[in-house]
């Protein structure tokens, strides 16, 4: 700064005002560069690559062999598991979202007051969230295995199966997810609950509102932003479900538990080895996610206003 100052031309008065702004803008750019570089490298470039793949004949072992749009999209939609996987993913998403949100809110209400026991409860609900999803899935893989599980004698006696039938596999996997994520959603709900001012509850009590009325008319409306956040998180996460099914069921039994992301993995790496078609499904999923999230945002916003 001090070096450039002496050589300043006479018309410096006007520039003095613009100069700092230019410098600030540059500084701003500088500060933003690291993030921008990462966004470009880790988000924009891969996204463009996937779009390019989805428009090209691109096999896993042979690489890019030129454009062939829209063949990949036709093949993706015609895939023998496409409809099944979409239906299953939606079914699973609905089930997981309802269970997780209800349970998350329920647990949060249960441990809302801070006491020694509640702190212990909160911690124990949250512990599963510290486990990686893949490790948790492996843990349950053993628990559910009719061969290695400690529950094997029980399963044997009552003819139970955890992963042997389509319904059992769906329920068992959902149970794993609820076990793994309920604590996480509880924490989010707790934060929301603690953001509700105490005097609103006091006013409700003075007006003689019952517990249920307080919950319906005070807690739920004031919790809307939190509910919006958790719903978006849960729906998006469930639509992209992969690890739990990949490890526990591999899409079985009898192809009844194939999620959309698993279908992408299957097409890309397990047999068909066609990255083009896999990218096409990815693009379809991306568009669906954007649409679904936009709808959710709008739904929560319009109720708010």
């Amino acid at each position, binding site marked *: 700064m001090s070096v450039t100052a002496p050589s300043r031309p006479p018309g410096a008065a006007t520039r003095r005002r613009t100069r700092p702004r230019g410098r600030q803008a*540059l500084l701003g750019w500088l500060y933003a560069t690291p993030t921008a570089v990462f966004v470009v490298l880790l988000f924009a470039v891969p996204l463009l690559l996937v779009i390019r793949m989805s428009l090209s004949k691109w096999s896993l072992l042979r690489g890019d062999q030129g454009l062939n749009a829209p063949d990949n999209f036709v093949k993706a939609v015609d895939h023998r598991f496409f409809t099944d996987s979409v239906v299953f993913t939606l079914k699973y998403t609905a089930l997981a979202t309802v269970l997780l949100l209800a349970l998350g809110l329920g647990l949060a209400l249960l441990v809302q007051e801070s006491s020694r026991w509640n702190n212990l409860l909160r911690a124990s609900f949250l512990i599963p969230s510290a486990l990686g999803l893949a490790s948790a899935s492996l843990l349950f893989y053993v628990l559910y295995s009719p061969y290695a599980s400690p529950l094997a004698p029980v399963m044997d006696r009552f003819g139970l199966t955890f992963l042997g039938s389509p319904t059992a596999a769906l329920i068992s996997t959902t149970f794993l997810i609820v076990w793994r994520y309920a604590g996480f959603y509880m924490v989010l709900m707790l934060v929301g609950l603690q953001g509700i001012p105490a005097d609103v509850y006091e006013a409700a009590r003075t007006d003689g509102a019952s517990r249920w009325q307080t919950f319906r008319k005070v807690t739920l409306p004031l919790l809307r932003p939190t509910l919006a956040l958790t719903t978006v998180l849960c729906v998006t996460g469930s639509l992209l479900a992969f690890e739990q099914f990949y490890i526990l069921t591999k899409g079985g039994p009898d192809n009844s538990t194939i999620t959309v992301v698993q279908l992408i993995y299957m097409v890309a790496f397990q047999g068909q080895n066609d990255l083009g078609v896999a990218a096409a499904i990815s693009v379809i999923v991306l568009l669906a996610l954007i649409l679904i999230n936009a709808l959710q945002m709008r739904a929560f916003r319009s109720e708010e206003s």
Partner: protein
Amino acid sequence: MSTTLGRRTALRSLAGVLAATLTLGVAACGSDEPSGPSAADAGPTGLDDGSELTLWTRAPLEKQAKLLVDAYNASHQNQVKLTVVPNDDYVAKVGAAAGSDGLPDLFAADIVYVPNWVEQGLFQDLSSNIDGLDFKDSINKGHLSAGTREGKEHVLPFVLDLSMLFWNKQLFTEAGLDPEKAPASLQEYAAAAKAIQAMGKDGVYGTAAGLNCGGCLLFTWFPSIWAGGGQVLSEDGTESKLADETAQQVYRVWHDLWRSGAVLPASAGETGPTWTAAFTEGKVGLMFYPATLLSSTPFDAGVAGIPGPNGGASTFVGGDGIGISKDSKKAAQAWNFLSWMMSEQAQVEVLAKNKDVVSRADLANNKYAAEDPRLVTINEVAGKGGTPVALNFQQAFNAPNSPWLTLVRNQVLNGSGDLKKDNDEITAVLKQ
């Protein structure tokens, strides 16, 4: 000053990032020629000049691969670095490496994928080297032909894995069966399984199978079809014959076994990782089992070829083939490993010593085989076995949701489904 400096640094770093991205992009697209001497120029045994070679294989063959690599490293200047990849991730890993020209010098492939991978150009042509081997005619035919395209060989047998009928002699004795006599047909197999089940011993089952694992099923059931005189695929590998009479007889026997409760219940959901575990622990009377596990089976087990519905014997000559990758710049050194691997030293003193099957027929009657008659049985049946060749094999059979798996599960577990329709689905995939 600081401003200009800042701007310059910013520009420079941006340019750096751009340059790095471009280089990466170019590196990923360019296909550079191998720079070292090619395998063919290096003479019959290649070069042993202290280079470091990389080798990839999949987890089921880890034991054999480790033995071979350790023995080679101990006796050569070249050093092979072994990478073992979980079975399910292997294709993805090879595919990703092939796309970015990052394949290791040597890599093994499940023999049923070899035709496809050779066609995709992942292996270097080794025909002049292999033609130079004076024992070429005794190398396992199934493996060699799987890696042959347009008359050029690309792949040598790495480890042979045969499916055999194994039975637990102690459980046979307890059930009043002759522990020294193998069931001669699939019918007798089923009868033996039911007899062991009928003992009602806690936690013991007649037989087991990987009923949710396409690879396990083709490995163990195709031989029954061959032994019965049937075929599984057409010559060119584009048509499935798995709805034919012999195949139907096989499904019927297994459907009956499953309904009778003589099959380990966990088999229904078994996707592969633990499909042999119950037998190894002595909890299963008899099963079709991989011969590579002979050395790690802790109890007295009998071994025979896999019978057909009415007798006969056959086996699936599986396992992995190995070749030099398209990306290797040390082909001459890699050939040194391959030529050593085929030598009597490696085949007998490493593989046969570990009770593994040798991949050269002229070495089948070695001194270790003489000590264990079961190895003689395995080596004999190896000659009668088959290795199916089809380009879309993985998708049609091995994939977790392959149409083959649907067919078997419909036929055996559910006892329903349209056999012809399920079979046509396999053909449709094979033709793609």
